[in-house]
């Protein structure tokens, strides 16, 4: 009996009779005359800050992470804050502020849903598009952590900011689960009016830590 796999492959084979048998897919033959980057020589940190803010994320640049994080938390006053494993301890403000939750042992979805906020690092950021990319690495935790709480505070080291999409993809490891985040969740489904916040966090704050701070001892 022929399987559907064989059927489909046979159909494809007979559909492509115009393709010479000797022809092979050649990635190098594809013209890629587009730019490697649209950052246009801009300062990538400034560009990222501006573009992320365009999505109505609140962006702060700082040389001292604990101060900026404490200020953001004082503004938003989440009742509780998930802090994933591997979040640099030296970035955390002194005790006080929201109740801190660790995902160890893993929080249930109910507990995640009940948490008010989450504080994470990221893997890469993209200047031209104002995008954060999380890869579930240290300080980020599994994907659900940055999804269910209504408030997401993300800390980016300036060195993590790639100029544009191509560079960002090269820096990422596709074997890890990747989440590209460009502003708070949004919908334009009702008369095309943009409404921030449907299922993902409705508030997104970004703190960019600039290089005069000694880089924390985590991998890039």
């Amino acid at each position, binding site marked *: 009996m022929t*399987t*559907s*796999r064989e059927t*489909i*492959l046979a*159909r*494809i*084979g*007979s*559909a*492509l009779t115009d393709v010479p048998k000797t*022809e092979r*897919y050649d*990635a190098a*033959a*594809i*013209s*890629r*005359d*587009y*730019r490697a980057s649209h950052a246009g020589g801009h300062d990538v940190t400034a560009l990222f800050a501006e*573009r992320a803010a365009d*999505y109505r994320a609140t962006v702060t640049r700082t040389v001292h992470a604990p101060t900026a994080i404490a200020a953001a938390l004082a503004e938003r006053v989440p009742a509780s804050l998930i802090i994933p494993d591997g979040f640099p301890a030296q970035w955390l403000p002194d005790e006080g502020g929201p109740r801190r939750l660790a995902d160890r042992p*893993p929080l249930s*979805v*109910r507990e995640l849903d009940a948490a008010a906020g989450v504080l994470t690092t990221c893997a890469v950021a993209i200047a*031209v*598009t*104002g*995008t954060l990319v999380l890869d*579930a690495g240290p300080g980020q935790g*599994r*994907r*659900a952590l940055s*999804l269910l709480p209504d408030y997401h505070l993300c800390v980016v080291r300036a060195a993590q900011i790639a100029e544009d*999409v*191509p560079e960002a*993809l090269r820096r990422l490891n*596709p074997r*890890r*689960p*990747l*989440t*590209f*985040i*460009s502003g708070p*969740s*949004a*919908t*334009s*489904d*009702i*008369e*095309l*009016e943009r*409404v921030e*916040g*449907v*299922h*993902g966090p409705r508030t997104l704050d970004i703190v960019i830590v600039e290089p005069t701070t000694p880089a924390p001892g985590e991998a890039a």
Partner: protein
Amino acid sequence: MSGTHTSGGVVWLGSPAFPEAARSAVADTRLRTNLRKATGTIRDKRVAAAAELDDWEELRTAAAAIKRATLRHLDHHLLRLEESVTAVGGTVHWAADAAEANRIVTRLVRATGETEVVKVKSMATQEIGLNEALAAAGITAYETDLAELIVQLDDDRPSHILVPAIHRGRAEIREIFRERMGEWGKPAPEGLTDDPRQLAEAARSHLREKFLNTKVAVSGANFAAADTGTVAVVESEGNGRMCLTLPETLITVMGIEKVLPSFADLEVFLQLLPRSSTGERMNPYTSMWTGTVPGDGPRAFHLVLLDNGRTATLRDTVGRQTLGCIRCSACLNVCPVYERTGGHAYGSPYPGPIGAVLTPQLAGVERAASLPFASTLCGACYDACPVKIDIPEVLVHLRARAVDAARGGSLPTPESLAMKAAALTLATPRRLSFAQRAGALGSRLLARRGVLRRLPGPLHRWSDTRDTPAPPRETFRAWWRRTRPENQ
């Protein structure tokens, strides 16, 4: 509870042919106002977002080249994808047609013992009528995109690829939520107004329970990289992230044409797709996953590779390019016919210019013979398309096929010769601007000569409404160049 809002298949059963459906849609002034406002807004945003990249043309050229080269070796890339996905813990299934895909998904859901699934926008599952098939097996599928939710609660059909409820105004949405949400789960809050913010909030809390409880998700896919086995879903609301992250089992139904040779190719499409569809530099969320990851997300991942007419489309060397479509919906938003008729008139989950070429190819020209005529051949869709699908060229080609089919493929009729001549014209260099002039001219000529009136039933009726909007004297490209010199 009513769960059968659409009848399955590429062509919705019982849908009138385009001319009849279009006539009643055109007569609906509220629909037209909604549509004009919506497509106008989105069009301006798209133009601005594309203009921001001075190498937009080069990106389009690369995207078209990748898609076309991939399709020429589709079997090779699919086998590679299968190998990569399998290597990272996923299971690949092949479905030759809609019925088989539905059987596979139903069996996979049954094996989990669950009777509910959450779904994130997937045109492929609309195309195969998955919700109805699951309902028949006692499984309820919950749509989770805001617009799909509106459509599902209302027992309606989507009318736009990106904004399926584009035909509904806020007051109507409030009524739908108030009347129907309770039947499906958590009811709408007391005192719900028609403020979009409140409506979004109502959807958030209605669906949150489903996300937290449901153990199985069904998704579509925007892209899948053959070299790494990475699958990508591009979205805005976060319902995609919910479906891709919280359930234990994830079933992704993907048309075979979505495969890309490599993860690196995403650099082209992630730049083109958001700017072309919502006019944003980047959509709020894109999720990419490669198989399963212990302790993070679904424990089981199934990828269903769907043919359902795609290999037949591949066979047609002119129509083949249609398979490069990344479903951005830019062509809908620029189409003068779509703006007047809306999506339902196309009688298929794929509306607008892309639907006019894709539906007849997937379903067979004879089953959607009026669709290739649902265009003025103005060329705006080609100009907007981020993967440079020459929709006018395919339309003219399919018209010839529709005419042949109507004649039983025997003696060529004068009109089939005319269409074939046009197809030849389109194949010559400088074809676009020429084709536009020829198209605008041709439609007037054909109408005047009454050729269309000799076509079979539906085509005959189409000719009545076809004359109503006068073909533009100035082509879209000419107008474009005149009014926006800064945009190439």
